[in-house]
Structure formats: structure tokens, C-alpha cells
């Protein structure tokens, strides 16, 4: 029994990784007032570019770096369309999703063609901690991208609540007119958060293709980017609550995988549905909580308009 629990918990922690990167990135963007529904597309591009680099060079660090650059380029594009061109964010996001998904599929067929695997980031036990009973195995024998994802929670919390930049981000998403009237550069803040979100989505993708699954195939993410967006709402734009949501979701997922692997007699269609069902149920239950999204979410800024 203990082994089962350790197994499931450990895999839940691993599975939470891509969601954490993507959701924290999306949180930053949304807090500044930009809704990006293209997360899944950027994740796929990050996953592909990291995988391809590692396949060709064997260099994991370089693979990660390429995913970061690709994510940043996508972030820049998304910021340009949403912030500078003031596009309808819900629609442009779907566009970026389809674009990222399509492009990664095409590049995959042209440049790789068939299923390969790579050696991803190996487990990196943390001295002393990894020897602790129970928690040592669950928490401290993971790979570096898993640690990175969890480190992101306190880091982003600190950024948002303790720094002038964080204050600017929160203000810009609530009342850009007010921030502008005090000399805050709305455009610069929104470019920053959206590019950061792009980078984090890129890393989220890389964490799948070169750290957790170590493969790439078409539509590898299978909609994870959308769950990441849902988790932002679930977490009410607070890093710590986003973490809770990601863990809830990944735990249900880990159980689901375990049930399937064990061959327990539940229809697989049903178990596959579970994580999504839980998300919908929890989100619905939380709708009562009345945490409001940032007031300027999805609203382009124009000086002098009220």
C-alpha cells in the first residue's frame, strides 16, 4: 500500500510540472490584463523544438534554451497582436493555438517523421533530503525541471507581492488608466508578462518532451494548455492556489494512470475523463466564491478612454 501511495504521489508531482509552468505564465499575463488562450500551441512548439534539438545534439541544456527562445518569440508575437494591435484576445488566442499545433505537427513530419525517444533530464537527487523517508523519494529524487516548476511558485509570489514590478503588473490588470496616469508604461508591462508567459509555456512543453515523457508526437500536449488556463481561474490568480489546483488535477490524473496500468476493470474512457470532470466540478463549485478576474482582463488599453 505504501508503495502505491508513494508511486502515485511521485507521479502526481511529476505530472504537475508542465501545468505549473504554463499556469504561472498565464497568471502573469492575465494579472496584467492579457488573456492568452494560445498556451497549448506554444507548449507544442516548445516541446517540439526542445525535442528536436536534443535528438540532433544530445545537449539537454541547449534543448531547453531553444524551447525558451521559441517560447519568447511566440510571446512576442502574441503581445504584438494583443497589446499593440489590440486584437480580440479570446479569438487571437485560439488562432495562436491552432498555429502552434499545426506548425509543430508539420515540422515534426518533415524533420523527424517517426516516433523516437531521447534521454531526458535524469533524476537529480538532492543530497541529504533525498534520503528522508517517504518525502525523500517523493519530492527530492525528481529531475531539475520538476524542481524548477515548484520553485516558480514562491518566486512568482515574491515577484507579484514584494516588488514594484509586481505591483505594476497587478495595477495594470485592474485599472490601466490609473496606472498610466502615474507614469506606468502599460505596453511595456504587458509585453513583459506575455513574453514571460510564452517562455514558461515553452519550458512547459520542453518538460514534457525532454524531461517527463522524452518523446515527441503530433499534439503531444493533448489540450494541457487549456487545462493550464482553467487552473489560473481555479487558483484565482494566486500562485499558491494555482499550485493546489495543479496538484489536485495531477493527482487525479496519476490515479487514473495507475488504474489503467493495473488493468482495474473500469472503462478507460471513463478514467480518462476523470481529471477533466474533476476540473469542471471544482470550477463550478468555486464559481460561488466570487473571486473576480482582473477588471481589465481582455481589454486593450487606449490612453484617454474611460
Amino acid at each position, binding site marked *: 500500500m505504501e508503495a502505491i501511495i508513494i508511486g502515485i504521489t511521485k507521479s502526481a508531482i511529476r505530472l504537475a510540472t508542465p501545468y505549473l509552468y504554463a499556469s504561472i505564465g498565464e497568471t502573469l499575463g492575465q494579472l496584467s490584463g492579457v488573456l492568452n488562450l494560445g498556451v497549448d500551441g506554444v507548449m507544442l512548439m516548445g516541446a517540439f523544438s526542445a525535442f528536436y534539438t536534443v535528438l540532433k545534439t544530445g545537449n539537454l541544456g541547449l534543448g531547453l534554451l531553444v524551447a525558451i527562445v521559441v517560447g519568447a518569440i511566440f510571446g512576442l508575437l502574441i503581445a504584438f497582436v494583443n497589446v499593440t494591435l489590440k486584437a480580440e484576445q479570446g479569438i487571437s488566442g485560439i488562432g495562436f493555438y491552432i498555429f502552434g499545433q499545426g506548425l509543430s505537427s508539420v515540422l515534426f513530419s518533415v524533420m523527424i517523421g517517426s516516433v523516437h525517444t531521447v534521454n531526458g533530464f535524469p533524476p537529480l537527487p538532492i543530497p541529504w533530503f533525498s534520503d528522508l523517508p517517504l518525502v525523500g523519494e517523493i519530492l527530492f529524487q525528481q529531475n531539475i525541471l520538476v524542481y524548477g516548476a515548484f520553485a516558480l511558485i514562491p518566486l512568482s509570489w515574491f515577484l507579484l507581492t514584494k*516588488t*514594484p514590478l509586481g505591483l505594476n503588473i*497587478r*495595477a495594470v490588470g*485592474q*485599472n490601466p488608466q490609473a496606472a*498610466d*496616469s502615474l507614469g506606468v508604461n502599460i505596453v511595456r508591462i504587458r509585453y513583459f508578462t506575455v513574453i514571460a508567459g510564452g517562455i514558461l509555456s515553452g519550458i512547459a512543453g520542453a518538460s514534457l518532451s525532454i524531461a517527463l515523457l522524452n518523446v515527441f508526437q503530433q499534439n503531444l500536449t493533448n489540450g494541457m494548455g487549456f487545462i493550464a488556463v482553467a487552473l489560473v481561474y481555479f487558483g484565482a490568480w494566486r500562485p499558491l492556489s494555482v499550485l493546489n489546483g495543479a496538484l489536485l488535477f495531477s493527482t487525479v490524473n496519476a490515479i487514473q494512470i495507475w488504474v489503467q496500468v493495473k488493468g482495474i476493470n473500469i472503462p478507460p474512457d471513463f478514467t480518462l475523463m476523470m481529471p477533466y470532470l474533476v476540473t469542471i466540478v471544482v470550477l463550478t463549485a468555486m464559481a460561488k466564491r466570487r473571486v473576480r478576474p482582473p477588471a481589465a482582463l481582455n481589454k486593450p488599453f487606449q490612453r484617454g478612454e474611460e
Partner: protein
Amino acid sequence: MIKNSSKIINLIKVETVEMRGIVKQFPGVLANDHINFDVHVGEVHTLLGENGAGKSTLMKILYGIYHQDEGEIYVNGKLVNIRSPLDAIRLGIGMVHQHFMLVPTLTVAENVALGLPSSRKFLLDLDMVTERIKELVKINGLYVDPEAKVWQLSVGEQQRVEILKVLYRGASLLILDEPTAVLTPQEVEELFHVLRSMIKRGYTIIFISHKLREVLSLSNRITILRDGKVVKTLPAVEATQEKLARLMVGREVLLQVEHPAVKLGKVALALEGIWVQGDEGLHALRGIDLEVHSGEILGIAGVSGNGQSELAEVIAGLRKPTQGKVFIKGINVTNWSPSQLLDYGLSYIPEERMRDGVVQEFNIEENLILKDHIHPPYAKGIFMNFHKIGQESERLIKNFDIRTPSRYTSLKSLSGGNIQKLILARELSRKPSVLVAAQPTRGLDISATEYVHRQLIEQRIKLKTATLLISDDLDEILSLADRIAVIYEGEIMGVVKRNEVSVEELGMMMGGVHKDNIP
């Protein structure tokens, strides 16, 4: 010069500001037409003008929100180019906007610190900001808790935060755009007290308003704008209310409406023991009994936030009472839906007119027929009768003097006064037997206010409408109401005839003293 404050903040001194030949064109409107305007250290220079005269535009140019098409700005004699609010702040100019520019989810200190470099570089220094705010609060008498969240504050407190924001940045020239529009009479007095003491300590103020009494009590000089042009600049000592009104409107205006007596009819609206929950879950109304007769205006006086909004909403069917009954023309209408009430002869002029009174995305014609669009003559079966709708709209636009290029113009491009005229046109043309008018002239200029007042009186005489007039403006209640009920913390402190009560007695009731306990 500016005592005390300079110890805490780096004050940026402004001796003179001069705006020369300022022109600003918006699509279809020349908002500023070669305006000359100047202000000198230690004075209150008021910009007076009706809504749409171009006051805010001129000041937004000075503060860098808009850029002028033509003209120059000199600060301390030097030509400057102000391209953004940041430029203005660096020159020592601060602006408190007509619509507050605060982030409600942040604390007072966070709102103040926003956009400023931190003394700790990459870390926020909110503790220091809080300390400095406390000092500024003390020196200037602008009482507010730096650690409170802005959404928890009253309107008056929010305004103080706005002023603190400006002071904290070292501004010595303050632009206050209609700061009194949202305040109660008491809050206005407090604000003026603060402003006067700031002037004594060497600050300079540009004050924007269209309320004559306030303008005369605060200003040194007054510049009157009309249709984007300067009509006149004169010292306040040479001005009277009548003179200012004439310059501002461009014709003679009556500052007091005629108020002939009418014979009262039957009780048209009655409330019996109404209890209502407010948004915070507490009881906003606690056992209200009221009667309004046909042909009567009953004024509800009180400091805002004592249950007035809930009272209007419960009668309009927008809020359910937890106890008690509402009767219209003798029929129990408690818990009727708003549309049933409308069809039964209730009209409603809502307090939040932009939110509850109009559909901003619709045009004028559509807004004019909004409540009756499913009935003849506007509808024929399942079809709209556009011919009839057009005719009626044209008639209403003309009769109610709604200033618009056409009936197809989008509602958003109308001024506040014209939007209120539109609502009035729609509500009064329905020939209501009961009218609930909540803050019907809040934020309106003199001409529009005069107009609304005349319409309410006329309605009462011609159609014998029973009117419940809810207003924070005691002068308005005194000039319109036949009887006055004073509300305090959701209870009625007393109902009195207008000509049998003094302002002092009303003031005591507004402060929570029951009529029977007034000596």
C-alpha cells in the same frame, strides 16, 4: 515656501503655468478653441462651464493625457512639451480626475506607491510609503488609513487618496476635476477646509466645477468656458451666482423653480414595514413605512449610503424585501417583476443611470423605446413598427430638447445631461402613475438640472404622478418636495411638510435624531 511637507517629500515648485492658444479637435467636436489660461502660485483658479464645455480636455492636455493640436504651454515662463502624465508629474503638476483613477483591489499605500521608483530598488518599500503617507495625512488633514484596501473606502476617502497620491509625488499645482460632484455637503465642506489650508501653505489649485456656490466660496479667479471657448476670466470678488450662470449658459437662467401647490389625490404608492438586505447581507432597510399621494413629490433626504439606493430598488422590483409589502394604487405589488411593475404604471429614473438606465451600445432611438418596445404602437405582432418608432423618437428628442445630431447617434456620444434628458423622456412619456427618481440631477450641469426640475414639477401638475424623489442634495429636496422623509441607517426619522421644517431640524434627523426627540 510650503511648510512641513517639504521635510517628507521633494516638492517641485510651480510659480506660474500659462496655456496659450490651445486647440484640441475631437472627431466632430472642437473641444478647445484657442484657449488662453494661466494660474499663479498661491491662488485657486476655477474653470467653470457646463458639461461638454471643454474643461476636462484642457486639463488633460496640461496633464499629458491628450496632446494639443495647436498652442503652447509655459511652466515658470519656460516653454514645455508635455507628452505624458509622467512629464507633468516631473514639472510639479498633479491631477485628481473626475472619475477616480484608483485600483480598488490594492491598498491605499500601494496606490500611492504605484509607478514610483522604490527606495529599495527591486523590493517594494511599502512600510516607508505608509509612514510618509501618515505624515502627509497629519499635515494636510486628509484622514485615511494607508493600509486599507481602496474598495473599502467611502467616496470621500477615495478622493483623499487621490489628493495624497498627487502630494506624495511632490506636485505643488493641483488640478481637481469636479471633485465635489460625488460628495455630500458635509464632505464638500471638509474638502474645502483642506484645500484652503493647503493654499495658505503655498500650494496652487486649478478647480473645476459647475456649482456656482462652491465656485464663489473657494476661488480667487474664475474662467468661464462655453463650447470650447473662453467667455471671460474674472476675479471672484466681481462675480455673483446670477452673473456666472448667465456667462456659463449664455442666457438668463432661473436658479429656483416655480412650485405651485396642487390638490393631493389618493395614496398611489405605499410601503408597509419594508425590510431589505443590502449587498453586504446586513439589513439596509429596517421597517420602512411611507405613503406617496397622487400629485405629490415626497423627498427622501439623508446622507448617502443610508438605504436610499435599496429603497429605490425595492420599489422598482430590482430587490426583494425580506419582510413587508409594497402597494401601488391599492394593489399589493410586492415581489412583482420589474416588467409587471412597468406595465402597471411605474417609472424609474435610476441612480446609476449609465448602468441601469440605458444600454450604452444602443442608439438614441432604441434607448428611447426600451421599456415599451414590445407593446403597440412600437410593435405590431412580432414585428417592430419602425415608422412609428421614428416618429415618436423625433417627437421626444424635440420635446425634451435632447441635443443630438440624429436619432441614430450612439448613446455613448451624448453628454451626461442629454442622457438624463433621454431617460426622462422615456420615463415621463410613459405617463406613469408612480415615479421613482433616484439622484435625478447628480453630476448634471445647471441647464440640465433646471430642466429636470421643471419636468418633475410639470409632471406632478399635469399627470398627478406620485413622485418619490431620492436625493443627497438637500437644496434639491427643499426646492421640489411637498413633504420630506428623512432616512437614517435604513429607518425613517420623520416625515415633515416642507414649509413646516427648518434646515437645522432636517440636519438633526439626517444625523440620526428622531423627529419626536427634536427639542
